């Protein structure tokens, strides 16, 4: 053969083993590099970076973290970007400086980094704290006569006060969700004096808690000497990164990651956590699976087991395979037109006429998004299931028939159990495709901000008409649509990593299921 003429490779083999091995290696490397990039950029964000106090030759000073360096536009030297925070004082939280003009860089221990609900982070010094000391009943309002705490003591009481605030916030949330909301909905059904009294008591407690939270503020000073008063309840987290030991930082990192996973977003998605998005993504994918599995499997059974294997069936099969290649945005448009406006609009007219013109089902929502994605992944499930069915040897079917089974019994007792691993493979592919899909969702129900997850304690518990958040859309929104993209970028990386992990988790569940089913009886023997 011509192959044997080539030199440098084992005779008769040629370069193909190297080519194939090489492409595998390159694919794996690229995948690994992608994950590494996401992990480093995303998870590194939660590590408390040291704050540098930078003094320039012209005498000005600022405190910040170096983000990146770039060559000067005209050439000759580098310039460096610092995250200097203090948007309320400086106007911009970012500062470019020429590296050559830096006079000195120091890392003083007393520099604080505050994460605030408004205006982003603050870098500077904590001068004093007043009001809201943990006095009896926490009733005191901010006032001139409040004791002023200064220096190290101020820092200590700020830390204590923040922990207390956290507890108060939790109590407040519990009170609202577990007591006030159910009471209010029960009251709406019928008047009841005891209930009303209970509600009034709970509301009084709520106001009390809110008042306690509102007390106290701190005096802050930026490194160039500007001062401001900051209410304590507006502070999310306080750190002195330069004074933290490695275990401290590790603990802070863990807490940061936890908050990212467990909390809702803040500041127009440029800060805070992604819990509603995780929840929305997983719930939507699960709903999608529940919707697509029966349709896909039934369609595959029809095509492979019931339909006459003629020209028509072949045509349908080709059409199904081609549907998998239709751009997802087309499904989105279809979902918007048919599900949202068509079916949703009619549902509103029939059942929710009293709330019109504000739509209930006639607008994007969880149900329509899941349906649209179910439609999108239907071909994948059909094709995978059909291949599984086609792989089952005919003698298995005939074996069942020869024992007096009807065609239905043959299907349910022999064929379908044998095809289950293939169906799960189809589900795995469908989940992988659906979880990463964003474009169609933008038309049929994803929201930029929907802090209320679609499952709660109120009837009917699962709110299919609600809009929901999605990790993929969250990435798009934080990375490209925020007011401060530079600040939100690490969060976008972290969200991307999380999305990959969520898809991985969903897939591993299906793979585990499939393995479990397979190992019960071993693989199909080859006859």
């Amino acid at each position, binding site marked *: 053969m011509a192959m044997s003429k080539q030199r440098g490779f084992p005779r008769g083999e040629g370069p193909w083993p190297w080519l194939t091995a090489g492409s595998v290696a390159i694919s794996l490397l690229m995948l690994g590099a992608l994950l590494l990039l996401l992990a480093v950029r995303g998870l590194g964000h939660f590590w408390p970076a040291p704050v540098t106090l930078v003094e320039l030759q012209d005498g000005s000073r600022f405190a910040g973290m170096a983000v990146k360096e770039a060559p000067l536009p005209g050439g000759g030297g580098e310039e460096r970007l610092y995250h200097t925070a203090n948007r309320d004082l400086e106007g911009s939280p970012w500062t470019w400086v020429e590296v050559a003009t830096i006079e000195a860089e120091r890392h003083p221990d007393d520099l604080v980094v505050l994460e605030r609900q408004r205006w982003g982070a603050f870098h500077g010094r904590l001068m004093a704290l007043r009001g809201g000391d943990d006095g009896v009943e926490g009733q005191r309002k901010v006032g001139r006569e409040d004791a002023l705490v200064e220096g190290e003591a101020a820092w200590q009481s700020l830390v204590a006060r923040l922990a207390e605030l956290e507890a108060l916030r939790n109590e407040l949330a519990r009170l609202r969700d577990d007591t006030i909301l159910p009471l209010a909905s029960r009251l709406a059904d019928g008047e009841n004096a005891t209930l009303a009294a209970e509600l009034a008591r709970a509301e009084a407690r709520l106001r009390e808690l809110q008042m306690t939270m509102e007390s106290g503020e701190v005096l802050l000073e930026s490194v160039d000497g500007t001062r401001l008063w900051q209410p304590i309840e507006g502070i999310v987290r306080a750190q002195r990164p330069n004074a933290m030991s490695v275990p401290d930082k590790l603990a802070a990192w863990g807490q940061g990651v936890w908050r990212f996973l467990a909390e809702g977003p803040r500041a127009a998605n440029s800060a805070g956590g992604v819990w509603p998005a995780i929840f929305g993504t997983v719930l939507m994918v699960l709903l999608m699976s529940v919707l697509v599995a029966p349709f896909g499997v039934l369609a595959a059974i029809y095509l492979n087991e019931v339909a006459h294997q003629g020209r028509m069936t072949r045509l349908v099969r080709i059409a199904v395979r081609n549907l998998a290649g239709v751009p997802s945005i087309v499904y989105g448009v279809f979902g918007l037109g048919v599900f949202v406006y068509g079916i949703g609009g009619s549902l509103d007219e029939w059942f929710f006429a009293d709330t019109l013109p504000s739509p209930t089902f006639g607008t994007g929502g969880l149900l329509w998004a899941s349906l649209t994605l179910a439609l999108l992944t239907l071909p994948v499930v059909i094709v995978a299931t059909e291949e599984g069915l086609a792989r089952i*040897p005919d003698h298995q079917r005939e074996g069942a*028939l020869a024992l*007096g089974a009807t065609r239905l019994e043959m299907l349910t007792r022999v064929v379908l159990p044998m095809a289950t691993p293939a169906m799960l493979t189809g589900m795995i592919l469908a989940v992988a495709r659906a979880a990463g899909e964003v474009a169609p969702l933008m038309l049929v129900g994803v929201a930029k901000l929907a802090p209320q997850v679609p499952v709660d304690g109120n009837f009917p518990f699962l709110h299919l008409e609600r809009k929901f958040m999605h990790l993929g859309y969250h990435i798009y929104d934080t990375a490209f649509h925020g007011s401060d993209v530079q600040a939100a970028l690490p969060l976008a990386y972290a969200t991307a990593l999380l999305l990959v992990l969520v898809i991985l988790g969903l897939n591993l569940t299906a793979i585990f299921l499939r393995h479990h089913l397979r190992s019960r009886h071993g693989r199909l023997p080859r006859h």
Partner: protein
Amino acid sequence: MSDLMPPAMAPSGTILAFKREASCLEIEGLCLAYGDKTALRDVTLRVPRHRVTAFIGPSGCGKSTLLRALNRLHDLNEDVVRQGRIRLEGSDIHGPEMDVAQLRRRVGMVFQAPNPFPMSIYDNVAFGLRLQGGLRKRQLDDAVEEALTAAALWEEVKDRLRASAWTLSGGQQQRLVIARTLAVGPEVLLLDEPASALDPISTLKIEELIRNLKASLTLVLVTHNMQQAARVSDYTAFLQQGELVEYGPTDSLFTNPRLARTENYITGRMA
């Protein structure tokens, strides 16, 4: 019944006995085609009760097709065109009062490749019984043991009834399939080259099993192995290109074939 006999058959001792046999299955003028490809041409023969009847013939001559016609396995294939009549104990298997599932329970079938279902050994044997329903756990246990014993497999698997059937050897799998078929209590057992995928020892076990089952069932065996046909069958039918060429007692067909075509086939194979 003598008019169903091939014409060129001179009476002798065994042949007279053959003529007197009570028939279990009667095939009359059976023609069968896959679309426009004819597979069986006007086959007429009767299968005697409680005997082993072997179908032999070159590959593609229609042995399996004939066998599968006997329990209507062709029903699923829409391309199949059939003419002629098949009677089981006197009643037409295509008749209106014949229930296909019922027919297939009465006429069991074992295929060339062992095809146990991907379930436990127990569940495989209980499969047909569970389809009928109405059996208690104890009755089911007894029926499974009985069937496995009848298939000479009980001793080998009684300690691992819950193990997957796919963990058995090929020969054991084939006997399991026979047990599974016996469990539903058939009157006829169709065997399509049941030993062709097995080693010699397993083959001998199957052959012994066939001889033992004769007491309670009518057996029809398709085989490519002349010695096997000679060893286990009472009567042999030779088919060629969809036609029944010669049919008679195994001894006389092998030792004294009536037609040259039969002799060529048998000697060509046996040499």
